[in-house]
């Protein structure tokens, strides 16, 4: 609801043990290392000793989008940003990325269109290692579809 133009530099003052990754289904108190493929992480390394610009760069695109949506809210009414967010969430939940594409530049065409990025190429398309979305395997897809 506010005209935030740059991301804030918030040092986290508390952290949950499952804050930085999805919880394992059978052991809900622990981050799921097998599915995420990362080593067991140290929470303090994620919370402390961050670069002063880290927060700003990570949250830049989201902050600019929020500013844009806030402008739409003031101009067109409260329904407009809600609808845009709803469409984005629907696409994020249901879009299917074949494992064949793996970590390539082809993420999700629908997502690119909604975010107005389908005609541009940025660094995130070349250095794809920072993509959070992992190519989903069959089991995760089924669980998502079944709602397990």
């Amino acid at each position, binding site marked *: 609801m506010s005209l935030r133009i740059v991301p804030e530099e918030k040092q986290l003052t508390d952290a949950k043990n499952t804050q930085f990754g999805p919880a394992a289904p059978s052991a809900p108190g622990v981050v799921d290392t097998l599915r995420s493929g990362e080593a067991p992480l140290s929470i303090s390394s994620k919370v402390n000793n961050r670069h002063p610009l880290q927060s700003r760069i990570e949250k830049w695109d989201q902050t600019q989008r929020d500013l844009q949506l806030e402008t739409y809210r003031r*101009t067109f009414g409260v329904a407009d940003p809600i609808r845009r967010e709803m469409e984005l969430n629907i696409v994020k939940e249901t879009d299917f990325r074949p494992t064949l594409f793996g970590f390539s530049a082809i993420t999700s065409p629908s997502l690119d269109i909604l975010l107005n990025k389908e005609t541009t190429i940025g660094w995130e398309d070349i250095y794809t290692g920072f993509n959070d979305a992992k190519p989903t395997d069959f089991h995760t897809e089924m669980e998502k579809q079944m709602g397990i």
Partner: protein
Amino acid sequence: MDSINVDVGHLKKGEISMGTSIMAVTFKDGVILGADSRTTSGSYVANRVTDKLTELQDNIWCCRSGSAADTQAVADIVRYQLDLFKTMNGRSPSTRLSASIFQEICYNNKDSLTAGIICAGYDKGKGGQVFTVPLGGSMHQHEYAISGSGSVFIYGYCKENYKPDMTKQETIDFMKTSLSQAIRWDGSSGGVIRMVLLTADGVERLIFYPEEYNEELKD
């Protein structure tokens, strides 16, 4: 980690500063904005002919002080919001509205910004109006306003010499003398004095070189 310390006075390392003298004065026919023209990076003068008077709409302008990057970014966003308002509503925004948008942005982002703005405009209904939005993001309306690092030296002079409803030439002379004194005493202010007049006749830009405003350089 129990409190947030906001060092609102401090520029980030290497950031370009607009240590400045800016002022805006209402008079009989409208409002005049004035500023010096020095931009510094430490003690190095990065630009000696800066234009610190920025147009937001035809009849609404602002004076910028603080970090050059921050004030440019905020002024761009405010200009965009005002253009959008004008397009969607079919009428020009008021001076109070543009100052209000400045205030909201400066307050909500006060941990990241170093921006002191004086927003002034002329419209037929209310005449000339001056709003000042200092560092923390508050908004104050005055008949005249001074701001920037050089303004501390001229508070007394301005208080004694300002009169409401002056003529155009009286106001120009008042502002020229005030800003020349601010430039004289403040190391971060200098260069030329720029002015923008907003009246019913539209916009007029004026410039005064050191030979014209500096007593010691005359004759």
